[in-house]
């Protein structure tokens, strides 16, 4: 009996593909569409305490092998998000509430609300590379991360995941801080800080000048981070960065990921990407006589 089901920190997923935060996750109806397309789980847009407009355009640069974005964490705020969650829950797939804040108390408030709304878990955005005072600015300091994760853990009963940035040489230290604080999973990685310049206009293209690079361009970075984290912590890891095909998922799982997130591919390949990936995984499992994906998690470390 071949199954694509995976268990992530106690959350049952029908398959290991989860919609990554920041893609089609701002409204309940769009989350439903992604569930219909076959995603095994859904991460919401990162939600903060208050409504935020984000940055003016340009907020996206399209490259041959990925995107650079600096949306600036737009979102309706936690109060208004209640009604979106209500709709999203109709999908019957686990909804993971992504949160951003600057201080532990605010993360705790947000996580409590997300739990009340019916989220299966929360994902702490400790890694957005383009919002002043949030995300990566707190996520590269192991002490700050430890205190955020332990406050949230003390306040909610649902699993707490930390999404980490690759833009640091202290990735392993930060992950160990998450583990020491009782975090339930690591999500690696968020986007790689990057920029693009218009030669004709002689200026940066993005309004924020810098942004986060995602898509196939960063797959090698994400994979390396997951591999290193698997050696350093015992927590389950969710692999993110440039996943577009079943082969990418297998690479991430062999590096140590228990599940994966798909973001940029939704724009580059369309929502059909979820089914393409899961069909490909099924074929691989059939051809290699695999009953359960757990059998391949971390196998690359044996060599």
């Amino acid at each position, binding site marked *: 009996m071949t199954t694509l089901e995976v268990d992530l920190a106690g959350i049952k997923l029908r398959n290991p593909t989860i919609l990554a935060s920041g893609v*089609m996750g701002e409204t309940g109806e*769009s989350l*439903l569409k992604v569930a219909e397309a076959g995603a095994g789980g859904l991460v919401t847009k990162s939600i903060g305490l208050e409504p935020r*407009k984000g940055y*003016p355009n340009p907020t996206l640069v399209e490259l041959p092998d990925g995107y650079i974005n600096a949306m600036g964490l737009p979102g*309706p705020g936690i109060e208004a998000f209640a009604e979106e969650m209500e709709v999203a829950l109709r999908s019957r797939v686990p909804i993971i509430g992504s949160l951003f804040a600057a201080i532990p108390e605010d993360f705790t408030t947000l996580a409590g609300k997300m739990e009340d709304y019916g989220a299966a878990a929360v994902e702490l955005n400790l890694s957005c590379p383009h919002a002043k005072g949030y995300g990566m600015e707190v996520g590269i300091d192991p002490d700050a991360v430890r205190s955020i994760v332990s406050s949230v853990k003390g306040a909610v009963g649902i699993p707490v995941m930390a999404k980490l940035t690759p833009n640091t040489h202290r990735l392993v230290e930060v992950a160990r801080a998450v583990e020491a604080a009782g975090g339930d999973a690591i999500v690696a990685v968020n986007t790689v800080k990057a920029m693009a310049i218009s*030669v004709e206009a002689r200026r940066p293209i993005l309004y924020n000048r810098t942004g986060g690079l995602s898509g196939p361009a960063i797959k090698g970075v994400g994979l390396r981070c997951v591999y290193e984290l698997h050696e350093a912590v015992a927590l389950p890891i969710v692999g993110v960065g440039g996943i577009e095909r079943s082969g990418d998922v297998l690479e991430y799982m062999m590096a140590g990921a228990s599940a994966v997130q798909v*973001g940029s591919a939704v*724009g580059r390949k369309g929502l059909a990407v979820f089914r393409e990936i899961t069909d490909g995984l099924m074929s691989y499992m059939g051809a290699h006589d695999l009953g359960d994906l757990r059998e391949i998690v971390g196998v690359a470390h044996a060599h």
Partner: protein
Amino acid sequence: MLIETRVRERIEAGKGITTLVFDAPMEARPGQFVMVWVPGVDEVPMSLSHIGPHAGITVKEVGEATKALSCLRPGDVIGIRGPYGNGWRLSGGRILCVGGGVGMAPIITAVEAAGDPGRVAVAIGARNHGEIIFEERARSVSNDVRITTDDGSYGLKGTVVSLADTMMKEKRYDLVLGCGPEVMNKFLLKACKDNEVPCQLSLERLMKCGAGLCGSCVIDGLRVCADGPVFTGEQVERMAEFGKCKRDDAGLRVKL
């Protein structure tokens, strides 16, 4: 991919309505749009009003970004990415194209793509004579072009939807294409339903990324940028938000 180009030509299409032709060719389907970057100002979605070797857009001055676009001169640097979206799906048989105001921009490319002046009719509406655009272009590729203005300063006095309704009652159409303000689209949808003619409507929402990622432009979970901007009448009928509300920069619902 961002194409860095320059404005090749600037044409007054109507009162406060400007056509900008780019120095870059753009292979696109009628009804598709591009994201246009005015360095230092903004980047906004614009329907292509001209496709092929000299692609172009037609913009009505309504806010800061459209004002900046309207003020561009030949030689000015702009960035274009796209084309994005699905575009019109032209069927066989007789087509009625309905454009309200600057909504004529994506409509005119469909009229030109129909390829037979006998099978395509056009209804153009605007607030006044000055805002009627692309009449000559339409007449050169269609044998039946009619005009309405709200104030009666040109063509028939009235709405373009009542004109379209009249045209549907005169002759059997196999398809209606419509683009205009949401209120016009809403009444056009109803007129098409009453006359039992299938339709496609080009919709508009606030759009940040344009590439199907951010979800800022979703209407009932469908992305205007990637799943649209052209939707079938059946799709639009199922949209609870259509004609009622849109979302602002923060993703909060705003009543229309």
